[in-house]
């Protein structure tokens, strides 16, 4: 089977990729700007082809708890939502992290706080990368910057989720979700028949009963579990950092940006170079684990770093940690659902670094 070329919205590409990746179940609740995912799956009706279960839940709370139940059976299950809905899901997400269940959560981010706007933003970085719900935990966070990556990251997410028994989030935004691009779709994979040894699927006489829980009343036992999680996150930090460099080799200044802002900054790099300013772009693909070391190494070679994000400045805190005071670091980004333009980024770069 060969790959298939299509013109699709980011949300649709992700939905189609989920079917093709052999997902077992999707549980969602409508919210702009990601409702196409549920709509697409309902229309595609994969129950008839791959046997994938698709269900519209009564709330985001119910949807994420359906994901909990399916994941606890060792199934490849997922949900998607946008910012206000992801806030509602946080209870379930922390239980999933605490029970060490693999699953995929997609956040097609819109501006906030509160009901905010339905337009694209990147203001959920803290929530996605620093835990989100209560307790010490991390999601593995992937940030797609194209419709192609919306599709490709589904299978990668399931792979990482099962490798580490950890929830994975695709942190997209309203622009990537809504825009149409060409996308190469992988051929249909069969749904996995592998039953993880920890899964609750009915206890055969040959093993002890499996229990999926995040509850432990003995603090000594709970601390050992917390330490186990820390160890797991450190392994993820060692093994799973992903990023892309764009014209960094001779760069005197560095943009750090992900998702839609990375697309904008790619253009800014080209325009700046036409003006004789040597800028490069480091695009984190994984936001957890964050490419601290790579950015730190690049900071040895540049005069300044500009973190670009459609937020009030969230990722910039991790960029500051990466650069560790070697060169000045600033944040730039529009908010409230406004997508930053490449020219604005260059103007801000000039203002901060090339004023004299």
């Amino acid at each position, binding site marked *: 089977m060969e790959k298939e070329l299509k013109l699709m919205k980011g949300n649709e590409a992700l939905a189609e990729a989920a079917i093709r990746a052999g997902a*077992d*179940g999707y*549980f969602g609740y409508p919210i702009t700007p990601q409702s196409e995912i549920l709509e697409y799956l309902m229309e595609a009706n994969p129950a008839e082809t791959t046997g994938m*279960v698709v*269900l519209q*839940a*009564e*709330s985001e*709370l*119910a*949807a994420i*708890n*359906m*994901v*909990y*139940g*399916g994941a*606890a*059976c060792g*199934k490849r*299950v997922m949900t998607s939502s946008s910012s206000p809905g992801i806030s509602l899901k946080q*209870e*379930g997400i922390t*239980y999933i992290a605490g*029970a060490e269940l693999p699953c995929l959560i997609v956040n097609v981010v819109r501006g906030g706080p509160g009901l905010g706007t339905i337009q694209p933003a990147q203001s959920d970085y803290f929530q996605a990368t620093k835990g989100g719900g209560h307790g010490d935990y991390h999601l593995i966070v992937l940030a797609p910057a194209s419709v192609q990556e919306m599709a490709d990251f589904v299978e990668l997410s399931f792979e990482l989720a099962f490798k580490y028994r950890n929830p994975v989030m695709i942190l997209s935004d309203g622009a990537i979700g809504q825009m149409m691009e060409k996308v190469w779709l992988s051929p249909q994979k069969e749904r996995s028949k592998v039953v993880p040894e920890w899964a*609750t*699927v*009915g*206890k*055969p*006489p040959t093993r002890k*009963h*499996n*229990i*999926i*829980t*995040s*509850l432990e009343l003995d603090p000594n036992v709970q601390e050992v579990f917390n330490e186990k999680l820390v160890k797991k996150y450190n392994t993820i930090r060692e093994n799973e950092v992903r990023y892309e460099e764009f014209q960094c080799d001779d760069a005197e200044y560095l943009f750090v940006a992900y998702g839609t802002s990375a697309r904008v900054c790619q253009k800014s790099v080209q325009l700046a170079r036409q003006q004789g300013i040597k800028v490069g772009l480091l695009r984190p693909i994984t936001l957890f684990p964050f490419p601290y070391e790579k950015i730190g190494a690049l900071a040895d070679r540049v005069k300044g770093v500009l973190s670009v994000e459609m937020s009030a400045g969230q990722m910039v805190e991790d960029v500051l940690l990466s650069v560790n005071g070697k060169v000045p670091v600033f944040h730039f980004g529009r908010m409230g659902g406004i997508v930053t333009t490449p020219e604005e980024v260059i103007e801000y770069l000039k203002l901060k670094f090339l004023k004299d």
Partner: protein
Amino acid sequence: MAEVTGNKEIIKPENLVYTRTKLMTENVLHYCPGCGHSTTHRILAEVIDEEGLQSETIGVCPVGCSVFLYNYIDVDVQEAAHGRAPAVATAVKRLMPDKFVFTYQGDGDLAAIGTAETIHSCNRGENILIIFINNAIYGMTGGQMAPTTLEGMKTATCPYGRDVKLMGYPLKMTDIVATLPGTYYVTRQSVHTPANVRKTKKAIKKAVEYQKQNKGTCFIEVVSNCPSGWKMTPVQANKWLEENMFPKYPLGDIKVPVE
């Protein structure tokens, strides 16, 4: 003095009338003396064993005293967040349609924080068994007012008695779900006397059978006690149960299959 030989008669296998329920683990129950959870756990385990369903069963137990059910019944169990068990069980059953799936929930869980999950899983007719322990109080957190707390009943958060004008009325969730087309069998039982234990066990057996036939949601309320929360002895609690709980929550089938 009693004859020693009489005791020897009792331990002969043919005279054995009671043993540990096979699917109950060796763990010591944390439930308070006289609490209905222990009995309900036992008959549920008995039914699973008698129906040969140990390897086919997936239980979902949310926050509440019975969140530790997984310590006591030797089947695969998922602990769930407060109120969310029916949503969790929905996915389990849809992804594993051949398994026997049950939730085991308290009144605060099922009728307060989990109201939406309860109503909607029943409304979708999810092919699961919901066991609902109604003891009119939050046991695990130390005896606060539940949605099912009776009018005038005193709890830690209504120390002067439940004032329905301020705190709302006792919620009869079982009657509500019986009105939904998705539920197939809805009944209200108790486990405070041997006769009632037998009736509740029979109800669980029926629910197992209906689930095999994909009939829809089966919902069994067990009107139960909370001797610690009610600040009574087990005997007092069961008497109070009969005199106060049953008039509000009368026992019997509420919705039975029409063949």
